[in-house]
């Protein structure tokens, strides 16, 4: 079965091993170390690591489409944010009458912009199962429609990148509008609890952190499953020689669509786990800059390796946490420099450095093919 196949391969076993070890260690240090101990992991750090893991999952999603399908999506932030909003709406509904105005139904921002009743698309989000379904469906559907149109008319390569960017930009503008009923610029915040657990307790935070870790593991296995399957090899075929793949009888646009949708849904899950941990979702997650940043995490880690994406995401964001602390001005220089250096001198990223000889699917497409892809 395609999903179990990855579990037999060593690299995946190693990855999962490291991941779960990290989860256990962090939890242990957090729970059993005394506060003042040097090894104590505060709930602050736990949440921070949780955030990194969300980004890691997001990066894996991007690597799936970019690394294996050659589709450079500059709009994955949109899917991430949509998942986040779906979760955010659920959390808002959970507040119930504990909001500032004590309105049992309407979220605060609707009350003081005196909305009369709940917009239709807010209904159902008080039920966890529905909200969590939406976490998958909202990004999935967007990806399906957008991808269907784009791939059908064979919009690929640079054009696709640019219109994905336009897509997320348009969504950002849209969500900034207060008429949209998503809280405008302020977004959704001041969450109280999730599935009955108080979000303000360390226990819940640890729980979310572990949940994120598991989500990452599952997401990773799914992606591995796809790329190690024959479909994965077909994807690479589409990436490197689209026309040839067609003449072999594969419906390239459907392959692209399928992988794109899966990736979008993974991104959505990442967003959904991100929101309760950082405590806010607002339109800035849609900003094109964020989407491009994701791509650079992947590029740095090494595309078409999946675990490279994880490394890249964690590394860059950890660097960001440190840098913005010690020398804020230098951060943009560092990030910008990273973009340039990685793409020019490190086309295969860190993973490329790690392995000299690589497994077949991770080979870099040649210029000629890239140009056509």
């Amino acid at each position, binding site marked *: 079965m395609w999903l179990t196949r990855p579990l037999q391969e060593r*690299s995946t076993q*190693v*990855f999962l091993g*490291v991941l779960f070890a*990290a989860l256990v*260690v*962090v939890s242990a240090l957090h729970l059993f170390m005394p506060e*003042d101990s*040097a*090894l*104590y*992991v*505060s*709930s*602050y*750090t736990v*949440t*921070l*690591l949780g955030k*990194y893991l969300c980004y890691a999952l997001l990066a894996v999603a991007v690597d799936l489409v970019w690394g294996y399908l050659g589709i450079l999506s500059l709009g994955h932030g949109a899917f991430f944010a949509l998942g986040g909003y779906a979760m955010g709406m659920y959390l808002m509904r959970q*507040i119930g*009458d*504990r909001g*500032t*105005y*004590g*309105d049992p139904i309407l979220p605060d*921002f609707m009350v*003081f912009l*005196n909305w009369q009743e709940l917009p239709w698309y807010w209904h159902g989000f008080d039920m966890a199962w529905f909200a969590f379904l939406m976490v998958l469906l909202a990004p999935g559907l967007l990806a399906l429609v957008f991808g269907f149109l784009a791939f059908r008319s064979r919009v690929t390569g640079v054009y696709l990148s640019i219109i994905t960017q336009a897509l997320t930009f348009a969504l950002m*503008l849209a969500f*900034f*509008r*207060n008429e949209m009923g998503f*809280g*405008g*610029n*302020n*977004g959704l*915040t*001041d969450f109280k609890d999730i599935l009955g657990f108080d979000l*303000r307790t360390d226990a819940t935070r640890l729980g979310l952190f572990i949940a994120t870790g598991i989500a990452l593991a599952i997401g990773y296995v799914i992606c591995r499953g796809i790329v190690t399957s024959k479909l994965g090899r077909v994807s690479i075929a589409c990436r490197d020689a689209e026309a040839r793949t067609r003449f072999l009888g594969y419906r390239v646009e459907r392959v692209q669509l399928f992988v794109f949708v899966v990736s979008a849904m993974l991104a959505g899950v990442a967003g959904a786990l991100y929101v309760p941990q*950082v*405590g*806010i979702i*607002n339109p*800035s997650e849609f900003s094109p800059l964020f989407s491009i940043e994701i791509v650079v995490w992947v590029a740095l880690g090494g595309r078409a390796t999946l*675990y490279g994406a994880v*490394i890249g995401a964690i*590394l860059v964001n*950890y660097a960001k946490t*440190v840098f*913005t*602390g010690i020398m*804020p*001005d230098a*951060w*943009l220089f560092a990030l910008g420099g990273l973009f340039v250096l990685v793409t020019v001198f490190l086309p295969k990223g860190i*993973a490329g450095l*790690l392995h000299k000889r690589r497994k077949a699917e991770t080979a870099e497409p040649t210029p000629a093919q890239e140009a056509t892809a």
Partner: protein
Amino acid sequence: MSIKKHVKLGLSALALSVSLNSVAAEDPIKVGILHSLSGTMAISESTLKDTMLMLIEKQNAEGGILGRQLEPVVVDPASNWPLFAEKARELLAKEKVDVIFGNWTSVSRKSVLPVVEELNGLLFYPVQYEGEESSENVFYTGAAPNQQAIPAVDYLMNEIGVERWVLAGTDYVYPRTTNKILETYLKDAGVSADDIMINYTPFGHSNWQSIVSDIKKFGSTGKKTAVVSTINGDANVPFYRELANQGIDAADIPVVAFSVGEQELSGIDTGPLVGHLAAWNYFMSVDSDANYDFIDAWVEHTGKEDAVTNDPMEAHYIGFNMYVEAVKKAGTTDVEAVKDAIIGVAVPNLTGGYATMMPNHHITKPVLIGEIQDNGQFSVVWETPSTVAGDAWSDFLPGSKDLISDWRKPMKCGNFNVVTGSCGGKAEVASN
């Protein structure tokens, strides 16, 4: 291979936490400064960081508080709203700061709020905002709508005789709320609906042609017309440019802005703006010795002769002094004690009066109307006879007109509903 990387990451992340853990110094009073030093908001916020550093320096020179020195802890939320929450948590949970001065945008405050309440910290918020909020842990030293918008409208109505109103704003919560309040206020004052025009534009809107020409049309009916502008930051330059180019000057249709201060003007060719208005609680041009001293200090601190001061800086000045007084009064930096002690504390502001901390954690401020001059300064043309107390809950919004806030015992409630006589949703939050 990847294993090593991961382990390394894990460790380094831990190392980070460790290093932060180990610095839990007892002696100095730690003052967290939570202002963006990079990203879009850096323009406005970085000066506030410097202001805080200046004030702390001064206080330390005077021997600190209760014989304890003050130690600033500066972090950079990088204009990224989730990052604000994260950094706030870092300040409170790791650095164990005694108080935080920070935030500019409403969204950043909203994102920090839950953290500050959860970890029971103190936050001084220095920027004019939409109100509709009162947290036990936050002190609002900026203007609430009734300390800026409403007096400004009164001025236009009574002194200038404006009958027709354009409420133009950037599409986010502050303008939305302010305009909602003003709309109700104007209608209560007998302005008919078709004498009010409301318009929202996105952040950084640069193509004002049609909107300005609409305003022009709207204003050409013979009734005196004014624009109440809650347009934010970058969008202002093209807006005023377009006004000037389409031949609208302050004499025909005055624009009163709530987000344009000395600092914003420093980036604008003020020629075409002369005569347009702004409403603040402080202007750099205010003629008081306290102010002149502050400006001198600021110029020295920055080393720039042309450095400007503005309203949020004054807010921090007031907030900081209030905190100092409160700690002295309480004799400790213990949060609960300070919270109780600070209510009623009065400190001099920069306009020659006094600011008092009200039970609703807002302060009393004078409201000044200034006209823009060609030197990028404002000349005060009107001010409220006495100071105005900040109103957490607007009387002009259906949702909140019955709410009051009083953080003194026994009420200790941020949104007490005077009709139902019960404390609203925040009840259990206040208790934990």
